[in-house]
């Protein structure tokens, strides 16, 4: 029902600062989590990374989005749940070491 203009506008998402999709098609619309209150209590020194596994090469050292190997699936990767950047903030320095 939308008026389809023949001139293709360049899409830009203000939320993600990217040209790969528009505001109205932003994955953050659905990839939003209801997080538990105050689970940032544990001290930073005792942090241990959770179990990881790569959906692309199987390695237990990283998630699939950070895989250095060539992608096996032919469907393009738009960014998934299985990424170090989807870890809670306090774990990220440890993961991206």
């Amino acid at each position, binding site marked *: 029902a939308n008026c389809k203009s023949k001139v293709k506008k360049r899409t830009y998402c203000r939320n993600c600062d990217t040209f790969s999709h528009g505001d*109205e098609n932003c994955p953050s619309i*659905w990839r939003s*989590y209801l997080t538990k209150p105050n*689970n940032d209590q544990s001290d930073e020194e005792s942090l241990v990374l959770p179990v990881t596994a790569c*959906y692309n*090469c*199987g390695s237990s050292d990283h998630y699939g989005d950070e895989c250095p190997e060539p992608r096996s*699936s032919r469907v393009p990767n738009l960014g*998934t*749940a299985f990424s170090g950047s989807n870890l809670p903030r306090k774990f990220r320095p440890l993961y991206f070491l």
Partner: protein
Amino acid sequence: SADEQGIIIDGPKKSLYPWIKDHDHSTQKEIADWLTMEIKDFVDYVSPSSDEIVTRNTVVNRLKTQIAKFWPGTEAHVFGSCATDLYLPGSDIDMVVISETGDYENRSRLYQLSSFLRSKKLAKNVEVIANAKVPIIKFVDPESEIHIDVSFERTNGIDAAKRIRKWLITTPGLRELVLIVKQFLRSRRLNNVHVGGLGGYATIIMCYHFLRLHPKVSTGSIDILDNLGVLLIEFFELYGRNFSYDNLIISLDPNTEEPRYLTKGTNAVLNTARSTFSIVIQDPADPRNNITRSSYNLRDLKKAFGGAYQLLVEKCYELNGASYKDRLGQSILGDIIRFKGKERDFNDD
């Protein structure tokens, strides 16, 4: 029936997504929360009522008692979805007869039991399938019309049910995700292992593996039950778009049950399929067994998962941009799940 032929009859049209009746969530600010609530409504809708639970228990107990009387020294057990409370309306009951001597899986025992059940009016439409890899008796309970399969001397189903019940306790929200994925597969007719579909145990392991590995779940930063909407989309995202079926095996560490992937190249024994594009899930109880050896239709499975991701995501974008008026009465799940069959009462307790 008229319904099956697509004829529209006068009177209120039967909804294809009856679970949203009187449960409108269109005013939710976050679309993910709307989907989460709709999933919970769907689960309430398909969950067995107390009457249905009583019926199933009655059928099971009657068969257990009668079989034990007929064959002293044997015991009949329930396994499968009925033993884990992961059954959908109309699911059949799986039973297995275990004997002290361990030698009841043979043609004459199968026929003995089938004529006993028939003569006692405990079974109708009885079929003896003696030549299959897993010989069974199939029949219908005359009172409840529930379909029942009885196998012999195989304990693996009982062990699997025990394992699943443990996971359901330690992973609140697993049940909800499994029921949605099962109904989705059923709507697409991809749940029948006899024609290459995905079985119940495989579906459960995929859900459990996905949840345990999820960065937000594994770090304890979210409750699964509060995030069923986004997690369902991410389940389809993983298995419909990103997982390398060509190279990887879905596995749980036998000691810790932690999720991991094995490579097909180094685990040839599990590679039962001819093509590399095949789903392989290692049996948690037997590392040499691939529980998805019959699920040969991976092409359609992956396409269905990928399509569900696409449909859900597009619906989220559409509804996010829609006015309150246009949101009213809409269903997000309705694009991926149809619920046919008798209208059910909500199970709100």
